[in-house]
């Protein structure tokens, strides 16, 4: 593979920023919601912004503040966040051959900014993505996520009490909004989600497990069962991201 990253650092970085602008917009608006919801979950503005700056991850951050509000333990929260984000392993593994790493520290820096959206842009780039392209792409993405949360916590300071009460349910609205596109692709997603919700409800009420561990067990058991039952998934949506990525080589 022929990666031309080193030749034009500034132009490559600018190209990365350009291709990252749609990501910036998407992250910024979603992250406003994160800032608002983090406040209603009981985080301080500083904690909310710190969360986005250090984690740069979507649904898992929303899940974490939900579990924090439920009083879950650190171990429960970290376990469920890592389970939800295990797909990053696949993304990084796939990107390894598509990014023009020059030094070891490139790997340490670029790893921090691997997200679903960055992954798909970098994977689709003809000829592979150079390090400066990645710096630009990931930099603008990080900026969108971090500044969106800052905007959200600022906005939250001006909201009325009754609106803040209504917002405590908005977290679930967000989960539903993340789930609906999956369900639109196939009824399998609806079955998996309902089964996981059912198992979680059972564990939480009938067996009085804590909110965090019941989610972890529901996720793992239903996912394992679905993996066994739903075989032969050639047209799985997320695989579509991975297959073209392989063709770049």
């Amino acid at each position, binding site marked *: 593979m022929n990666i031309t990253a080193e030749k034009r650092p500034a132009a490559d970085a600018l190209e990365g920023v350009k291709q990252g602008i749609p990501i910036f917009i998407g992250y910024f608006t979603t992250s406003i919601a994160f800032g608002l919801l983090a406040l209603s979950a009981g985080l301080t503005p500083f904690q909310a912004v710190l969360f986005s700056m250090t984690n740069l991850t979507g649904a898992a951050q929303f899940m974490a503040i939900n579990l924090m509000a439920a009083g879950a333990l650190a171990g429960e929260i970290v376990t469920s966040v890592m389970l939800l984000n295990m797909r990053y392993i696949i993304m990084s593994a796939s990107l390894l051959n598509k990014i023009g790493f020059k030094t070891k520290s490139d790997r340490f820096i670029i790893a921090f900014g691997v997200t679903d959206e960055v992954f798909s842009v970098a994977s689709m780039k003809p000829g592979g993505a150079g390090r400066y392209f990645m710096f630009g792409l990931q930099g603008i993405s990080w900026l969108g996520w971090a500044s969106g949360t800052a905007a959200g916590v600022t906005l939250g300071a001006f909201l009325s009490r009754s609106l803040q009460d209504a917002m405590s349910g908005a977290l679930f609205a*967000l989960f539903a909004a993340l789930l609906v596109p999956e369900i639109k692709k196939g009824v399998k997603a609806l079955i998996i989600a309902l089964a996981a919700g059912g198992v979680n409800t059972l564990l939480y009420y009938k067996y009085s497990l804590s909110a965090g561990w019941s989610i972890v067990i529901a996720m793992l058991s239903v996912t394992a069962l679905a993996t066994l039952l739903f075989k032969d998934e050639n047209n799985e949506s997320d695989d579509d991201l991975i297959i073209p990525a392989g063709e770049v080589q």
Partner: protein
Amino acid sequence: MNDNIIFIILACALGNYLLRVVPFFIPGGDNLPPFVKRFLDFMPIAALGALILPGIVTSFPQNPAAGIAGVAAAAVTAWFTGGLMMPVIASISVTWFILQFF
């Protein structure tokens, strides 16, 4: 409590970073068997299901209908518009309305 939250945030950051950085140092990691890929594809879907149920019912103990109607509004909006911001706004509006007037 505040220190604990900071600790959780940083622990999550470390966990997420490890998931992203370790494969950068292990060549050949992109040849995972299909069932592992399926497992990782299904995980977020199961997670969202477990996050919505039973949380949606318990989030408004005085008026569970407010939470349920809010999520329904979000789901319908998401189905027709896509994106995240419009569904969240629709949900907050519906929930606020029910909490105010019912």
